[in-house]
């Protein structure tokens, strides 16, 4: 069942965070990220971190899953932290060759590293707790006010839905075509780069033809089901804010207020 809703990493559950309106989660994430970039002191980070941990606990997503999703990003975090460590001017700790580590650099490096980690864990948490359809719905509705300025909100959402629907089908198809061509002696895995690129033609041409054929058939099927764009369309699942969302917004704004207060305190009074 884990993989049933397909793609991405959605982990079905009925936790508080899962039950939040997807719009709340997207806006909440954006506010949290802006919070991350306002912060400069460890005290404020403590608040951000505590908030983050609470949300993860409430989401019932195992910490292990969050850590696992961060794995491929460790390198970037480390790299960013190291750069800050060496290039920030200040009191030296030690010198390696022509590079000098500074206390200020250590400070900056740590802060930057924490920033990235928090940012990524929160973004992953959104995909862990929100199904792709809910995300698509939320994006459509959040963009809707912009449609009068020519932003094709419905069309974008429809495209996302169809992409999500067909990606697994096209993956299966790729596998089948590759095997069919391998049975005819094609070799996709050896030779020079140029040779390998040329070897992709027998795979890509059938894949494109098939994708176009599917698109064509799907368009006819959609027309047969009265599809005529986003106007006058209703939805079975309407998004509705509940008291849960109100509380979530309050929590995020309180957090932001604290962070801003700390920052103002720091700049004005040198706390």
């Amino acid at each position, binding site marked *: 069942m884990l993989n*049933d*809703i*397909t*793609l991405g990493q959605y982990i079905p559950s009925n936790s508080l965070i899962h039950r939040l309106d997807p719009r709340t989660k997207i806006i909440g994430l954006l506010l949290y990220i802006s919070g991350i970039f306002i912060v400069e002191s460890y005290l404020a980070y403590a608040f951000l971190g505590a908030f983050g941990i609470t949300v993860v606990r409430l989401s019932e997503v195992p910490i292990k899953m969050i850590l696992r999703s961060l794995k491929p990003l460790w390198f970037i975090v480390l790299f960013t932290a190291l750069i800050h460590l060496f290039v920030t001017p200040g009191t030296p700790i030690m010198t390696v060759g022509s590079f000098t580590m500074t206390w200020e650099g250590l400070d900056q490096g740590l802060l930057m590293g924490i920033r990235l980690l928090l940012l990524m864990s929160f973004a992953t948490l959104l995909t862990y707790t929100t*199904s*792709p*359809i809910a995300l698509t719905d939320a994006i459509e509705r959040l963009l809707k006010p912009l449609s009068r300025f020519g932003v094709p909100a419905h069309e974008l959402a429809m495209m996302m*839905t*169809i992409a*999500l*629907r067909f990606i*697994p*089908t096209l993956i*299966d198809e790729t596998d089948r075509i590759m095997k069919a061509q391998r049975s005819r002696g094609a070799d996709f895995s050896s030779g020079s780069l140029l040779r390998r690129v040329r070897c992709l033609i027998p795979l890509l041409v059938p894949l494109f033809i098939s994708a176009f*054929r*599917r698109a064509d*058939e*799907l368009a*006819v*099927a*959609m*027309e*047969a*089901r*009265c*599809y*005529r764009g986003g106007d*006058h*369309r*209703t*939805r*079975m*699942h*309407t998004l509705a804010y509940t008291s849960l969302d109100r509380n979530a917004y309050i929590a995020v704004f309180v957090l932001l207020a604290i962070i801003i207060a700390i920052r103002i305190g720091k700049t004005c009074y040198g706390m």
Partner: protein
Amino acid sequence: MQIEVKNLCHHYVGAEDNQPPALDHVNLTIDEGEFVAIIGTNGSGKSTLAKHLNGLLLPSEGECLVDGMSTLDYEYIWDIRQKVGMVFQNPDNQLVATVVEEDVAFGPENNGVPPEEIRRRVDDALRRVGMEAFRDHAPHRLSGGQKQRIAIAGALAMDSRWLVLDEPTAMLDPQGRQEVLGIVKRLHKEEGIGIVYITHYMEEAVAADRVVVMKNGVILTEGTPHEIFTQTKMLEELGLTVPVATLLADRLRAAGLDLPQNIITDEELAVALCQLR
């Protein structure tokens, strides 16, 4: 209330001038609640005809009327498509959403039905095709037969009164074929939904009230399954398969047994043979 096809001709755009039309003066009336099977080889025009019944293709000549509304009249096109639901051959290329119930909701959503009513119709449609347990599954994980049942549910949720199925079982395994045919039969018998069923499989066409045989864009003949499937010679000339009971009865008759002409099912053959005892 009926679907009337009057003197319908269809030339595909871009087809060369010397090519015969895909449909050539076809006349056909389908009554409400009727189950019509259309058989014929590839290129006989049966899919083209099917696509006219809900205005996916428009007549080059003649007209197609659904409850008196012409598909040529743009004003009525959405009403027509809502009344005449379609199921296509490839189960993969007609489901839009990433979750079963969202897909079933697609039609009524397009028609601007209020949310609570969509909910009711989706639940109802899923129940009628026996797929309520799969409501939150991803379509790509279902079997071919299950996908076709979802496609049928999608039409039912639009409140369609006719279902046009264009070779819905051609890509399915025997189990999937039985599932789909079973549901179609039940919808016809118990709910009075009109069925237009295009197929190569005689076992499926036998279930219909009326069988229409097409060749080269014209209707060659039509009649009850008994009238059509006992014409062994015509079917074989057309390259269509003949039911085994009919073939066997032909051979037994040739060998001197006195069997009636109208045998198309195993049961009928058995009963006729019993009377010879």
